[in-house]
């Protein structure tokens, strides 16, 4: 039984499927490496060298440099792997989410039922 129309957007968002995963393989692979403390240090001490070592394209590198998380998602990044990039660049989930909504972090928090539960 068909579960999902290929390429469909749900509530405006892309669904992470095989096409997205293939497109984002380099980005996600680099982010996956950030699960290791040594790699987090390597990223923070020389971001350019780290991105080159993981074979990112120039366009992908630019998205990382600009901390463009919506752009990284569109390039095939998976949100759970991008969160690891968020850790080493001080961009938590809620900061990323506020940007996706086109709001400041404070504006976003004001929309929540209880922003104390962060």
């Amino acid at each position: 039984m068909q579960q999902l129309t290929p390429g469909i957007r749900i509530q405006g968002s892309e669904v992470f499927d095989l096409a997205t995963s293939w497109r984002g393989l380099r980005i996600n692979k680099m982010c996956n490496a950030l699960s290791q403390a040594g790699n987090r240090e390597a990223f923070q001490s020389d971001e350019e060298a780290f991105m080159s070592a993981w074979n990112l394209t120039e366009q992908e590198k630019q998205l990382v440099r600009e901390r463009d998380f919506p752009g990284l998602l569109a390039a095939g990044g998976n949100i759970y792997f991008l969160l690891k990039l968020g850790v080493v660049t001080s961009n938590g989930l809620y900061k990323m989410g506020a940007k996706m909504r086109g709001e400041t972090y404070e504006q976003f928090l004001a929309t929540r039922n209880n922003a104390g539960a962060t």
Partner: protein
Amino acid sequence: MGRIVAGIGTSHVPSIGGAYDRGKTATEAWKPLFDAYVPVREWLKELKPDVCIMVYNDHGADFFFDKYPTFAIGCADSYAIADEGFGVRPLPPIRGDLEFSQHLCRSLVYDEFDITICQEMAVEHGFLVPMHLCFDPQENGWPVASIPVEVNVLQHPLPTARRCLRLGQAIRRAVDSYEKDIKVAIIGTGGMSHQLTGTNFGAMNEEEDLKFLDRLEDDPESLAGMTHQTMMEKYGVEGIELIMWLVMRGAMSGKAKRVHRNYYAPMTTGMGLITLAEEA
């Protein structure tokens, strides 16, 4: 013979782990969540399960898209705590039940569930948050042995909702056919509604979450018939994690009765809880 004594559906939101580690469980914002689990832990202390089957998904802690299993099951005597990108949480190591795991894997494969069998597996918030919500760690570790059952809910095509329900039914047959008298709890984790990408980031759907809790109890078949697309339209793209609750439901009988239920949606995810017990 093995026996399933408890079924639990619970969210596994990572911020719950952060609040737990930082001692914030009694704050005004977190109390409505953590207080709901106090009677659950008391109930489990009385039931004394020997084994907990934890149905969860990895979020990139130990599995990567180079090779991505649909269902992966731990078959080891212990499981490491993974570094998800911010260090290793200060929790006791996870004890396995190797003999039961080996039986479970044999039984599932011969029951035509072609699972990936993992003799090394590191677990993360999807597993750990429900673990410390439902059990108190003691000096010598956790009061139960655990079996991690990992489900692909990240990279579509995912297993269908019905396949998840059937996996639960097959897990029950495996427990029933185990020669040792062990008591088993099964926990289905994830959800409830959440959307973590796009302009609708943070969208929740309390009304549908509450209906899901009702139907999980009374009419799981109606949930198993939903497509992923329908589920994501109701619960959000990341809310598809709720298919893992159906694994738990499949392992419980039709006569199972609800014991606890809670719902709290403070930030970006509907945090649900339901517990089911078999009639004595």
